[in-house]
């Protein structure tokens, strides 16, 4: 296991995407102006697809450490990397017509998106605190820059600033926690932490401080209460295509570092971090769902919805069992797919002149664009967790894991707030289906591009049609999680 060798093959997708990001950056300087965006777009999507194939190709080949123990290639990383890569490819496809009209469809956008993907993949395969932190910062820096890319927007600049300051603070907190852990255990590798844990009991105060700092940093990155304040502002302030990017794949990477750090590195101290996650999970579900009701802006509503979903994700995680971790992983994967579809549909409704921001902009959508309205209906019922959509299986798996760990009252509170949450998802359906278009609605005939809509349709239909194969997906995730090193 502790092979102290380089083994480049463990990081092939990362290497491919980094090289291509550099290549696109250079090409952007030499190509004629009119073909830059086209070439950059084509190359980026191809790179992401090729890297997906490589990531999936590594599935089932066991766990291999590379780069002298900095990264690990296992089934968890294979699945999550494939999710991140495919998700980001979808983001680029959905964003095209929107971003072109807003003049952010430039070389920098692709380069930042690809480097962000590299950061996420490093996070996903981190086997060492240093690689974990480097991946996290690489992603964060790309996100700050992507938000700020819309130079003429005051809101975007504000969002970028806010995100940067709070993000830097959270990174600092996480890093401080990590340094304390290093001081206590003398190890930076996750396996090393796991082995050193036997000698340290929980009545050690510095250890508790370290755990609190690490968990706080992680919760910030996930956007769970009480470290959620940045989420709605950043979602609202960013250009919608950037919101799409940062709402989808980074959640998978965020889940991955929580899994690597807490479930592998710190699993001996389950009793300590479990309590913190209980508080955060319940607050996220409660606050996310109640505050979302008051929102009139689609992006803010979805931001609060995200917060509540992160609460549900933590609910599975805090069970502290293989079943719980795989339930959370299923939740993260399904959440990513829904989130892509949700913001993808909002993007498809935007026209060059028109920004879809308010819920009321969707009034009577069923009369004007029945197909997109239907896809949005699927998305809303998925977010509400109503069967037969996959949202149900995600909630079901998480609740089952939490119940098996004995958190009955927690589960009942979560369930009650899920009903409250259902209200604002239903309201969106109501606005699209029951309300008359009226005179205010700006959405006119379909203007988006056909290719993007086709991908979007597949994306949304998967939410229902994947029903017969959901068992196979759960099996795959359970096997991947079960293969993680544990005591």
């Amino acid at each position: 296991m502790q092979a102290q060798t380089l083994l480049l093959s463990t990081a092939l997708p990362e290497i491919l995407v980094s090289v291509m990001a550099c290549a696109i950056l250079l090409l952007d300087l030499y190509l004629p102006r009119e073909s830059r965006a086209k070439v950059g777009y084509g190359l980026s999507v191809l790179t992401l697809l090729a890297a997906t194939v490589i990531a999936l190709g590594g599935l089932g080949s066991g766990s291999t450490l590379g780069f002298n123990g900095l990264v690990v290639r296992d089934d968890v990383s294979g699945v999550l990397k494939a999710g991140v890569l495919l998700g980001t490819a979808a983001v680029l496809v959905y964003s095209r017509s929107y971003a072109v009209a807003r003049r952010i469809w430039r070389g920098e956008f692709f380069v930042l998106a690809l480097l962000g993907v590299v950061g996420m993949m490093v996070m996903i395969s981190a086997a060492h605190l240093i690689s974990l932190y480097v991946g996290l910062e690489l992603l964060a820096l790309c996100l700050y820059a992507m938000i700020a890319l819309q130079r003429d927007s005051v809101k975007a600049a504000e969002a970028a600033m806010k995100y940067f300051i709070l993000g830097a603070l959270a990174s600092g907190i996480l890093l401080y926690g990590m340094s304390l852990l290093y001081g206590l255990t003398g190890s930076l590798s996750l396996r090393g932490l796991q082995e050193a844990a036997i000698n340290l009991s929980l009545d050690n105060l510095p250890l508790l401080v370290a755990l609190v700092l690490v968990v706080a940093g992680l919760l910030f990155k996930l956007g769970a209460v009480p470290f959620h304040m940045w989420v709605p502002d950043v979602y609202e302030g960013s250009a919608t295509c950037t919101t799409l990017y940062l709402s989808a794949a980074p959640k998978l990477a965020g889940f991955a570092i929580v899994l690597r750090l807490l479930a592998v590195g710190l699993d001996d101290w389950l009793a300590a971090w479990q309590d913190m996650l209980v508080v955060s999970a319940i607050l996220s579900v409660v606050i996310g769902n109640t505050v979302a009701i008051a929102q009139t802006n689609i992006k803010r509503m979805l931001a609060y919805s995200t917060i509540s979903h992160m609460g549900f994700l933590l609910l599975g995680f805090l069970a502290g069992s293989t079943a719980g971790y795989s339930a959370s992983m299923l939740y993260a994967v399904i959440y990513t797919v829904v989130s892509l579809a949700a913001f993808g549909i909002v993007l498809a409704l935007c026209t060059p002149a028109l920004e879809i921001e308010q819920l009321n902009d969707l009034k009577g959508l069923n009369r004007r664009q029945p197909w997109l309205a239907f896809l949005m209906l699927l998305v809303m019922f998925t977010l509400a967790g109503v069967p037969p959509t996959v949202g149900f299986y995600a909630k079901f798996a998480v609740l089952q894991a939490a119940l098996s760990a004995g958190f009955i009252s927690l589960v009942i509170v979560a369930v009650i707030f899920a009903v409250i949450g259902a209200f604002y998802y239903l309201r969106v359906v109501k606005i699209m289906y029951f309300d008359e278009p009226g005179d205010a609605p700006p959405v006119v005939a379909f203007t988006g591009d056909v290719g993007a809509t086709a991908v979007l349709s597949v994306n949304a239909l998967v939410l229902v049609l994947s029903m017969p194969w959901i068992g196979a997906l759960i099996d795959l995730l359970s096997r991947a999680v079960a293969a993680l090193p544990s005591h």
Partner: protein
Amino acid sequence: MSWLDQHLLSIIIWFPVIGGVLVLATGRDANAAVARRLALGFSLGTLVLSLPLYSRFDNATAHMQFVERADWITAFNVDYFLGIDGISMPLILLTALLTVVVVIAGWEVIRERVAQYLAAFLIMEGLMIGVFCALDAILFYLFWEAMLIPMFLIIGIWGGSNRVYAAIKFFLYTLVGSLLMLVALIYLYFAAGESFSILDFHNAPLGATAQTLIFLAFFAAFAVKVPMVPVHTWLPDAHVEAPTGGSVILAAITLKMGAYGFLRMSIPIAPDAARDLAWLVIGLSLTAVVYIALVALVQRDMKKLIAYSSISHMGFVTLGFFIFESRGMEGALVQMISHGFISGALFLCVGVLYDRLHSREIASYGGVVNSMPVFATLLVFFALANAGLPGTSGFVGEFLVILGSFSVNPWYAAVAALTLIVGAAYTLWMIKRVVFGAVANDSVRDLVDINRRELLVLGVLAVCVLGLGVWPLPVLEVMHVTVDNLLAHATVSKL
């Protein structure tokens, strides 16, 4: 076991769902004629396909029949597990029949978003049959909840003026109950040795406290659907605002699901709690029978009146279940089928009037018999059946339930029998004001009698009501063994 026997249930679940998707694909209202024919074809097809369930059904066994089982989510031992017994089979036939009725009833009435309307009903049909067939708890839950989506849209899109409120109220009420049920199902999974099979749940050992909690969680889900007092308030709102077809399906089938849930889940899974808490259910049922009937008496809106009458009649059903007596339970089951026909027919009758005058107020009518004699005959017939006239299906169920409860406790029978008076009062009073008397106004005088389509729909239901009333044996003998087996199971304590 032929191939057909093994897959028949799957076929009648998914055939209408596929039909619904195809109907949806016909798109805009320009293709409405195609959508209508397609929907009629698929609903008739489902009815024909479901007939072998009756002809090939074995009355002599209480075991599940037409069983189909396959692995689905192996990580949680969730199976695709279907099967029917004497309780669920008649309800499936009822669902298949009423969907045809609803498709024909909306033929020229629904003019907006026709494809979406018909598709919603076809998909609902598949999901409702799925609820009656599912023997895996998660599959059951899946169909149970999925049904909310089309019903939500039916009420919200094609309903009346207060439809949005009614739709959201309907959805949230049901969702609260359902999610509590989900928690109970997950608990049972561990109690039954990591299995989601409902049949394994029946034999799962459970302590007294666990049984009580599980019973209450199920009660929350099923009582809302039945609906029982005091969680019945969504029903009048939903009914009044739903289009005619929606009301028919809601009254005739959706309400039956709650009752079915009691028989499939609550009573066999938590028999001790069911017997200990029977006083609660019986008390609420008798309250519904008497109090809601009085509420029905003062309604000015015909649909509201029938909605309250439904709640009152469903009180009979839950009363019949929880006296734990075989005549009572069989009577309750007959009452379920009979109420499906009668309430469906009454809502269709109101629909016929509403389509002509666009009013559901009793006060807008009067002397309808002068302009619509054929219709008036049918309406009076269904009203009498609703009041429990001997010779109609309404009598059989109520009589058996009263007979059963008399042997358990004469006071139950005495209170329940009050409905024969109050029920007759509110129904006949409505008939008197709507059908008879002097012609109320010009628009009533100009009413046109029902056309062949409406006559066909109401006539089929009238034949069913009369048939079941005169000769209930074919239905009773199907359910007899299953009911005896269920009662035998329910009397054995799990403690």
